[in-house]
Structures are given as structure tokens and as C-alpha cells.
């Protein structure tokens, strides 16, 4: 689960980390009031969406797509600037490298007090899957695209693995300050912030914290000028206060509903819907559709123990996508029995009056019974024995209709 920058900053502030004063706004009037409250000096006016690359993104009119403004993060030097920027941001679509071409509607704004920057750094904490422990990454090349830095100058990224049983050791924090060539008061300020940030990461079950940029001010203090915070979905049960920060408007509504029904769904751009049990097999099913010349419309894993109701919900979710012109069901019944799936498929197609072609491949437990139920249903359901055969059939059926 991700949160907005303004929410992350508030959590940082509560944790005693160095952030600038700032105000969350949803209207131009609030933005102007925030400017006054912050002392009427230089402020940053920042679009709030759950995607990176905001500064280099562009804002567009939601109706006609016309360019409104370049840059989703602006420095305002006076009241008039704040008014202009807030007007250009709120209610418009921000397109960045990470949002895709469709962009995201901006409903939230963060007005943050400015600071005099001497240098920008990059700082992140994440879980290193291979070493199986938290990893701190830092670089003197702040504000840049870190993936680009990693590719071109990997030696410019300093990495510190933190043993979970020891926590972040003072010498590790100091070593990192040294790598970043900090001096004097900035060292203490950095050590305090990185230690606090690491504790924040662990105590809140974060999956990732990225600060790009972290800055050193002209008076040699460290300030966390950005806050991209992600939480481990599996650990949300112990952080009800974090769950409350969730902004569902930032998430694909169908994906949210699928999750509530115990299904795992990701929308794609193709026209062949897939309903599969198991995440690996669901990915493989998409791959094979593509291999035989089709385009998958979605990833959908119904899980290991799906019942008739979940299968019906899954069909409903797939069919909500207007691009879908056919559906491939691929079930390898282990614990899940194929006869139950077959009944679910029939109930769902009848309940939803499915007209698009449907290919069903059932193997595993009770597959003979499952196939018999389908063939005796009198419905227009094609069956297949292998995944390849199923994919070829659905690609042909969909291709023939368009």
C-alpha cells in the first residue's frame, strides 16, 4: 500500500525526522491560506499522486487533453505564483514517466516551505531479496532518476545491509555519512535522520521508503525533502492507523474490488480475458496467449480454493472490461476440484449472459467429470486439453469475430 507525500511527511514529522513545514490542500483558497501561514516566503507547490517523476511530468486538461503546465512540482516566489500553480494542478491530469499515458487526476496538493539547498542526495530503504535483509541505499546524485544512476554509475550508490537482529549500528550510519562526504553538523543531522528513518521503516512494516531528494541546506542541516513511502500489505493488520491513510481513488477500482473478493486481478490492454488458479499459471496463461498471437486483457488468479461464487465474481470483473472479446479459463485442479469449477463456469455464464467466446481448459482432480458437465450444459463452451490448445482456440475465436 502506498500513501501520498503529505501523509508520509506527517508520519516523518511525528517520528521526529527533519521535514519542512507544509500544508495539505484540496482547493486554491486553501493553498493561498497555506502560503500565508507558512510565512509568505518561497514555497514548493507539489502535486500529490501515487507515482514518481512528478517534477518532470506535465499537467493536462481532463476534457480535451490540452497541455496546461509543464512540471507537477513548482517553486512559487509569491502569492500570485501559488494561485497560478494551484489552479493549474488541481483537477487536472498529471502524466509522468510512471503513470503511463493516461496520467492521474490530481485532487491533492501539498504546499511546503522552501529551504536553501546546498546539495541534493538520494536515500532509500528497501528489502534486499537476495540478502534477505533491509538495505539502505544512498547517493550524492540526488534528484536524479536512481535507476539511471544505478545503470550508468553503480559505484556512485552506497549500500549498507542491516542485520535485523542488530538494527542499524551507529558506525554504519556514520560510515554512510562519510561516504556521502558530509562534514560537521551535517554528520550528526544525517545520523539522527537515517537512524530515525530506519526505525520508522521497521516499526511501520514498510516495503520501501524513498527520499529523492534528501538535501543538505546552506546552514549544513539534513532535510528530507521528499517522502515516498510504501507499506507491506501483509503487515497492515498490525497498523490500523496506516490503513486509514489509504486513498482508494489512487487505485484501479476493479483491482480493489477483486481483492475484496479474495481474487488477484491486474488489468492489461488486450482483448482476451483469463481466469486461472495460481499466480504462476495465470502469468503463464497470459504469456501463451501472446505466444499464439493474441493479447491478454488481464491477470486473474482465483486462488487455490475458489468456490462457485468467486468464479462468478471473477467472470463479472473480467467482463467489466469493454475490450474483452473472449475468455480463456485455465484451471489445474489440485485441491480445487474441476467439477466444482465447471459448475461455477456454467452458473457464471448464465448469470452474466455471456455472449463472447469461452474456452475452458480443465485438468487435474475430477477433470473428466468437469469436462462432461461442460459438454452436457448445452452452452457454447469450447474445451481444450492443454494450455497451448486452449490459447490457440481462443485466439482463433476472438480473431474470427473482430
Amino acid at each position, binding site marked *: 500500500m502506498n500513501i501520498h507525500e503529505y501523509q508520509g511527511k506527517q508520519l516523518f514529522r511525528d517520528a521526529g525526522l527533519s521535514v519542512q513545514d507544509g500544508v495539505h490542500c484540496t482547493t486554491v483558497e486553501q493553498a493561498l491560506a497555506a502560503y500565508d501561514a507558512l510565512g509568505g516566503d518561497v514555497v514548493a507547490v507539489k502535486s500529490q499522486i501515487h507515482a514518481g517523476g512528478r517534477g518532470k511530468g506535465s499537467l493536462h486538461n481532463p476534457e480535451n487533453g490540452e497541455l496546461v503546465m509543464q512540471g507537477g512540482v513548482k517553486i512559487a516566489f509569491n502569492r500570485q505564483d501559488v494561485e497560478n500553480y494551484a489552479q493549474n494542478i488541481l483537477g487536472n491530469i498529471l502524466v509522468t514517466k*510512471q503513470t503511463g499515458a493516461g496520467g492521474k487526476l490530481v485532487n491533492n496538493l501539498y504546499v511546503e516551505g522552501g529551504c536553501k539547498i546546498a546539495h541534493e542526495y538520494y536515500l532509500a530503504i528497501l*528489502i534486499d*531479496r*537476495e540478502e*534477505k*535483509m*533491509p538495505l539502505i541505499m544512498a547517493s550524492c546524485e540526488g534528484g536524479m532518476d*536512481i*535507476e539511471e544512476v*544505478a545503470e550508468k554509475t553503480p559505484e556512485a550508490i552506497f549500500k549498507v545491509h542491516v*542485520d*535485523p*537482529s542488530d538494527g542499524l549500528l551507529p558506525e554504519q550510519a556514520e560510515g554512510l555519512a562519510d561516504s556521502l562526504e558530509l562534514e560537521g553538523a551535517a554528520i550528526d543531522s544525517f545520523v539522527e535522520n537515517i537512524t530515525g528513518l530506519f526505525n520508522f521503516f*521497521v516499526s511501520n*512494516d514498510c*516495503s520501501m521508503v524513498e527520499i529523492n531528494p534528501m538535501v543538505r541546506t546552506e546552514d549544513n542541516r539534513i532535510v528530507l525533502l521528499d517522502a515516498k513511502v510504501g507499506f*507491506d*500489505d*501483509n*503487515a497492515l*493488520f*498490525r497498523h490500523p492507523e496506516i490503513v486509514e491513510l489509504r486513498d482508494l481513488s489512487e487505485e484501479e477500482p476493479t483491482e480493489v474490488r477483486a481483492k475484496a473478493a479474495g481474487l*488477484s486481478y*491486474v488489468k*492489461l490492454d488486450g482483448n482476451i480475458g483469463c481466469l*486461472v*488458479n*495460481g*499466480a*504462476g*499459471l*495465470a*502469468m*503463464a496463461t*497470459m*504469456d*501463451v*496467449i*501472446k*505466444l499464439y498471437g493474441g493479447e*491478454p486483457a488481464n*491477470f486473474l*488468479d482465483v486462488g*487455490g480454493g475458489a468456490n462457485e461464487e468467486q468464479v462468478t465474481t471473477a467472470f463479472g470483473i473480467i467482463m467489466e472490461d469493454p475490450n474483452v472479446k473472449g475468455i480463456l479459463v485455465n484451471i*489445474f*485442479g*489440485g*485441491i480445487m476440484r474441476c467439477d466444482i469449477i465447471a459448475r461455477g463456469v456454467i452458473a457464471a455464464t448464465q448469470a452474466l449472459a455471456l455472449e463472447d467466446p469461452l474456452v475452458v481448459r480443465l*485438468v*487435474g*482432480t475430477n477433470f473428466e467429470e468437469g469436462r462432461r458437465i461442460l459438454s452436457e450444459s448445452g452452452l457454447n463452451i469450447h474445451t481444450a486439453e*492443454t*494450455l*497451448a*490448445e486452449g*490459447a490457440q482456440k481462443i485466439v482463433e475465436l476472438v480473431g474470427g469475430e473482430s
Partner: protein
Amino acid sequence: MSIWIAEDAKVLVQGITGNQGTFHATKMVEYGTDIVGGVTPRKGGQTVDLGGVEAPVWDTMVEAIEATDADASVIYVPPRFAGSAIIEAADAFSQVRGNGVIVCITEGIPTLDMVKAVDHVSTIDGIRLIGPNCPGIITPGENGGSKIGIMAGHIHAKCRIGVVSKSGTLTYEAVAQTMSIDEGQSTCIGIGGDPVNGTGFIDCLAAFENDDQTVAVVMIGEIGGTAEEEAAEWVAENMSKPVVGFVAGMTAPPGKRMGHAGASISGGKGTAAEKGAAMEAAGIRCANDPSEIGAVLLESLKAAGLR
């Protein structure tokens, strides 16, 4: 021999009195697994009916291992307790008999709990953790065998192909593919799709390389992380037996989590194309379609003079 789990391994079930625990313990007994009992805190002294077999329940893993000399345990406890269940099992096996295999089926364990559990297990010699979020491990036998997990037992048959996979149902697909060319399996292991897990690809490949019963291995990967690339490098340097593979997620969009907690492409890393290329470069023949794994395996067996 098989790897890690013998056909007659004695197995305990942690969380045996829960719905999932009882259901799957019954299925394991049906298959022929020697379930010697289980553990649920505060339910010690009770028994659980596993389709006609009464299985004893202990409060703690130490008591259960002392009473049964179990070789392995399988964990079906809810996510929030699973990390501590792994640690309890590791300590108990270590204390009572000095070794043991822990298979954790539970899906949805907080990552930092797994970081702690894996760190703990790694400090104790003789303890192997498989999973979490996996179908488990199965060693098919002449009559039944040892199935420790949630996989469909009946699709397996004892023979000479090792199978290792991140995914559950895709493992079934690989198993069915070995059967389609009249082969069978020595041991099949699901290592799970979580970002932080116990046993990895290389552990399995090394064990298969040293196992007399295994002549070739099917390795199934998926997007996310770099475990496949590292395994490929290891195979190129150390493996004499043929390995064939498949990587799921060629069409997965970047930045999206595809069902498994660990299955996502981040920062352009962890793509199926990269993994497939690394595996091919290491001499691992990869199928483009899981329905072709059997054919690719057959060619590799022929090339190695095994068919």
C-alpha cells in the same frame, strides 16, 4: 534416494486443529504421508481425526518431536503467527534431534517477520526451511510416498526427474509434463513466491546434482528478483545433469504485483526475458509455453543419452 524428504518421513503438522491444517493433514494421510501428530498451543492432549486416523496433538514442538522423533513439520498457522511458528520449529528440531525440515505453506506473512525467521534459521545448522507461500515438497513413493503440503498427490509418480518451482499450479503443470513423456519425479519442491523465503533454487539444484535418483531437473521461475539469474550462473559452473526450464511473466507489465508478493518487475529488473536469457546462456533449455516442457525435457534427456 530423493532429496531432503524420504518416502517414509515422519511429519508433524503445526496448526493441525485449524480448518486448513486438518483438511490438508487428512489429504496427506490419504496420499500415504506418515503424519505422526501435530501442534496447537493450549490444545495438547487432544486428538484430531484425519479421515479415520487419530492424530495426537501437543502444545509445543519440543514435546511433539520428543514424543515422535519427527523428521519434518509443515506449517498451516495464520500469517500473523507463522513467523514465530517457524522459529519455534527450528529451535525445537535443533534442541531435540539436531536437524529437521520445516515446510511453511502459509501465504501472507509480513516480510519483516520472514526476515527475522530466515535470519534465525540461517544461524542453526541442520535446519532447512522451505517456503513460505508455497505448495510444499513431495517425494512420490512406490506405494504412496511423502507429500508435505497442499499439492495434488495423485498427479505424481516416482521416477527420476527433479522439479523446483516458485509457483504452485505451474509446478503441477511441470509434473504433468514429465508424465506426458513417461517420466516421473524424484522430489518436487515449491520454493514459494514471496520476496523473502528459505530454500532457494540453488539449494535445490545442488541437492538434485548430488542425488542418485535424479537424472535431470525442471526449474520453473517467474518475474521478480534475480534468483533465476543466480541459479543459472550456478548451473553453468556446477551442474552436470541436464536442466530445463520455463519462466512465467513474459507479458507482465512493470511495477505491478502479479499475485505473488514477490512477483513484480521493479526498476526494469526481474523481467522474464532477462531470466530466460540468463538460463539459456547457462545451457538451461527453456520452453516458451509450459505445454512444451515435456518435449524440451525429452530432447535434453536424449541429448544426454538418458533416453
